[in-house]
């Protein structure tokens, strides 16, 4: 007959402990000694940008990217990343431009058309997924600076980056100082 009494006493002690803990935590929070947030965006050297790894250095000007919230890792994100990687590969086709231009200088090389087509798909994707703007912006920037990418496509990537990032005049000037002179010339020519 003593067993139920013992169990009841233990439950009572546990209940008192929980109530005490709650009162103590509330006290700490009230005194500002403990924040209520449960997750923070990491900063500093440990922070890894949530961008595609294509062997290109991150843009030092991309301060907004540092503040980007962590992304969901659902299928939409995977689809976006896959599209970016595929597009980037199709951009690296300068040899085809050379051979096609030699075969017929009057027709825009299909490689240029195909790259622009892929870039158009990416822009459409960006419009559908504004939550992944940092990824798209990193993509445009890497494309603009990559010497393996078709020159015309690089110019178009500069255009897309400037527009997506809403760069001001000085930021735009800074960007243009970092790209190939032919890319810069053509960009300014059509601006």
């Amino acid at each position, binding site marked *: 007959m003593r067993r139920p009494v013992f169990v009841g006493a233990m439950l009572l002690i546990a209940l008192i402990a929980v109530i005490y803990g709650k009162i103590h935590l509330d006290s700490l929070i009230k005194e500002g000694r403990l924040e209520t947030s449960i997750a923070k965006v990491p900063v500093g050297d440990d922070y890894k940008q949530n961008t595609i790894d294509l062997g290109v250095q991150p843009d030092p000007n991309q301060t907004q990217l540092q503040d980007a919230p962590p992304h969901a890792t659902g299928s939409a994100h995977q689809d976006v990343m896959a599209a970016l990687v595929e597009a980037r590969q199709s951009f690296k086709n*300068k040899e085809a431009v050379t051979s096609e231009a030699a*075969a017929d*200088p009057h027709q825009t090389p299909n490689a240029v058309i195909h790259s622009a087509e892929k*870039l*158009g798909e990416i822009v459409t994707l960006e419009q559908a997924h504004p939550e992944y703007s940092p990824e798209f912006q990193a993509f445009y920037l890497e494309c603009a600076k990559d010497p393996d990418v078709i020159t*015309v496509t690089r110019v178009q990537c500069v255009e897309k980056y400037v527009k997506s990032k809403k760069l001001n005049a000085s930021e735009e000037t800074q960007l243009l100082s970092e790209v190939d002179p*032919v890319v810069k010339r*053509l960009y300014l020519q059509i601006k």
Partner: protein
Amino acid sequence: MKALRTLPLATVLSLCALFLTLSCGSADRTSGDGTTNPDLPFTAIAPAIPLTSVPLQDYLVYSNALSSDYIDTLRSDLAVFDNWNGAMTGAEKATLQSLLGIQDATPSTLSMWFKERMKYIVANDLGLYKLGLVFGSQKQVGLQVLGSSSNTDPANTGGGNMGSAIYLTTLDEQKSRPELSYLILRINDEWVPVLSPRAGLMRVGPALFSNEFQINHTNIQALSNSLQRLEVLFHEARHSDGNRAANSVGFSHINCPNDGSVPAELVGVPACDDTVNGAYSVGAAVLKPLLHLCDAHCTAQEQTILRGIYLDRLSRVIPAANGTMKTLDPTPETGFNGIDISTFQAFNLR
């Protein structure tokens, strides 16, 4: 930089075939093949027909050797131009006027500019056509079917100005064969004399029409596809200009230099202009205002591709190191004097 002015590879290959034909023709003519009756009688040189305001789509003569699909598509493209309202910015208008030497750039004046330079649309395979070598002093015409150019007809060939190519070949051939007056080409029921680069002969190849090369892959006659082809048509029209005195006959392209001024992928390819008023500049300048049509009628993706094409054209114009671009003289070549060949004897060349 000493630029080598060259003709496009496809044109050069076609001309090589033509040159060989002419050489063989000479040997055969003296071997006693005898005379023949042309299946289409020769005619006197018709007086130049004044240019009219007839729509472009009805002005051009389309070779029967072209597929009906090609013809329908080209007519649809030209209808886009015929129906264009001519909306353009002040800068676009100024560029066109400066490049084309016209007072006021409107659809009407641009259309007239085009008609002065382009008249016949022929198939890419010159083997489909009969050629005549006019020997004026001997009152004879040597007839020859051009050798098939199928091996020089890659799928990615879009177009070329055959009038200027044939004219230049004739000039070259006359150095060793002064009795050659000029060449005539049978197109449908007409012997077309190639008296100058302004003969207005454009060949069109599969790349202009094949699905692979289209912007819109599901509709060959989509506006975006038409704009792409219109750019090529006006580009080719510029190749009808120029004269020997100014070394500008045909406004031929030059090899892209390796000096960091043009895309690295074009270096060494004869796909550049070192003049501000060359064919690439003309095509781009015409395309630019036409892109406004796309604002309301093309997808964002189509517009991105068209902008890529516009950039591709611009990227081939070599900027001047000193900032002042060279301008080539577009004054047309006087050309050869036309002859009444209606009574000339014909003989076959092999």
